[in-house]
């Protein structure tokens, strides 16, 4: 079970998403998941091995690393991506439920064309509109929460070259050096920007859905007349 399997699971959502939703999914998988797997994991690969402290005291390096990096950037991004992509499963489940209901209806009239039913696209209206809007809302919330957690843990997004550590068992204050700080800063800023772009896309999609909903409602009184 890895990112490829997640992509397969979410591929089904793509068919029933809006155009903005499709763009969001593409940005997520290409600019975030792929960059994480192909590049970022290698940059952070030697983060603890090459974290060097100016002391021979055993245990000092471990303790200082743990003090300054309670959770690695890579793991935080992986968790963020998992949480941000899962609300789309609500939509997948709702569509599967609708398809199942339709199959049950059509079975009694003996006109079952399973292939066609599986390929049919559902319009985002009625209860599906609410499920879809909820999923977008949750996506925005998760993105914001993770960006806040990032900011709280690592004040500012810049990776410093030198950290001064005085946790026990380090004797007095010890200088510790982070490996590849500039490269890490670049990737942090890149992932942050793409995260911001994804949030904007989600907000735009939410606005688009609301406008669509508002435009549909006034039409009803005209039809009744």
């Amino acid at each position, binding site marked *: 079970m890895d990112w490829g*399997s997640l992509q397969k699971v979410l591929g089904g959502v793509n068919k029933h998403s809006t155009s903005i939703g499709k763009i969001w999914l593409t940005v997520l998988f290409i600019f975030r998941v792929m960059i994480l797997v192909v590049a970022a994991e290698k940059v952070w690969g030697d983060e603890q091995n090459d974290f060097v402290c100016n002391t021979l005291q*055993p245990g000092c390096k471990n*303790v200082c*690393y743990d003090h300054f990096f309670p959770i690695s950037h890579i793991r935080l991004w992986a968790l963020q991506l*998992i949480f941000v992509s*899962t609300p789309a499963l609500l939509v997948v489940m709702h569509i599967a439920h609708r398809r199942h209901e339709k199959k049950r209806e059509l079975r009694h009239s003996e006109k079952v064309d399973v292939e066609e039913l599986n390929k049919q696209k559902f319009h985002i209206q009625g209860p599906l509109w609410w499920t879809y809007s909820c999923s977008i809302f949750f996506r925005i919330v998760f993105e914001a929460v993770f960006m806040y957690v990032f900011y709280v843990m690592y004040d500012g997004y810049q990776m410093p070259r030198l950290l001064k550590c005085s946790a026990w068992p380090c004797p007095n204050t010890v200088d510790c050096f982070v490996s590849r700080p500039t490269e890490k800063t670049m990737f942090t800023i890149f992932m942050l920007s793409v995260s911001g772009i994804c949030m904007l896309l989600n907000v735009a999609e939410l606005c688009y859905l609301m406008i669509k909903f508002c435009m549909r409602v006034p039409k009803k009184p005209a039809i009744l007349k």
Partner: protein
Amino acid sequence: MNWAGLYTVLSGVNRHSTAIGRIWLSVIFIFRIMVLVVAAESVWGDEKSAFTCNTQQPGCNSVCYDHFFPISHVRLWALQLILVTTPALLVAMHVAYQQHQEKKLLVLTGHGDPKHLEEVKKHKMRISGSLWWTYICSVIFRLLFEAVFMYIFYMIYPGYQMIRLVKCEAYPCPNTVDCFISRPTEKTIFTVFMLATSGICIILNMAELVYLVVQACARRAQRDSNPTSGKSSLYGHKLSTEYKQNEINQLLTEQDGSLKDMLRRNPGLQEKSDRCSAC
């Protein structure tokens, strides 16, 4: 065989599960297996190489690591996930057996063309009769395994927090030696996360158990108040309108008890089979 292989095997079960069962399966694969593979394995990756003891005594490092970590968290979780997902295979096996019986019946009654046989494979089995009991057993086993592993976790690592420093006195370490664990905070975060998802899975399993029991009671109440109603299986209706009583008698005398059991479950044939002498 890896997690993706397990996912392929269990996706088949998904079709015959309840809605809660499907949610449970998604939580297992996305929030537990995926997090384990993508994140937790790399956090625990250097647990032994970065486990440092304040001594130069050879062997002390290894002995202390082994003393404090008899089995690594990652391996325990992998075992837990494998054992928790395997009871679903009981259901898969039972469904396959029932489909086999239905196909046999179709062939015997002259509906053995490929189109009908394909339909048997594709149609969703209702969770009733012996399948209900198999499903209930699988949910109970899941709950049991989850609880057992959480207890084992608590026994081996009392409290879920990973400490930074452990004091080791095992031979050949001289006196008491300070040993430092790598990434304790990150490990604590992931331990709490996996524990929380395990708790959510236990709640989902209990909800599914309650749902199945309530569904069975409701079905029984409906059957008691209206004995002639009830849905037939996919082919019960077709067979009852096409085949004569004596042909069904013939089938029943020739075939084994499992076919009788299946025919008995089809209310469309039930009336006729009640009147038959061979039953």
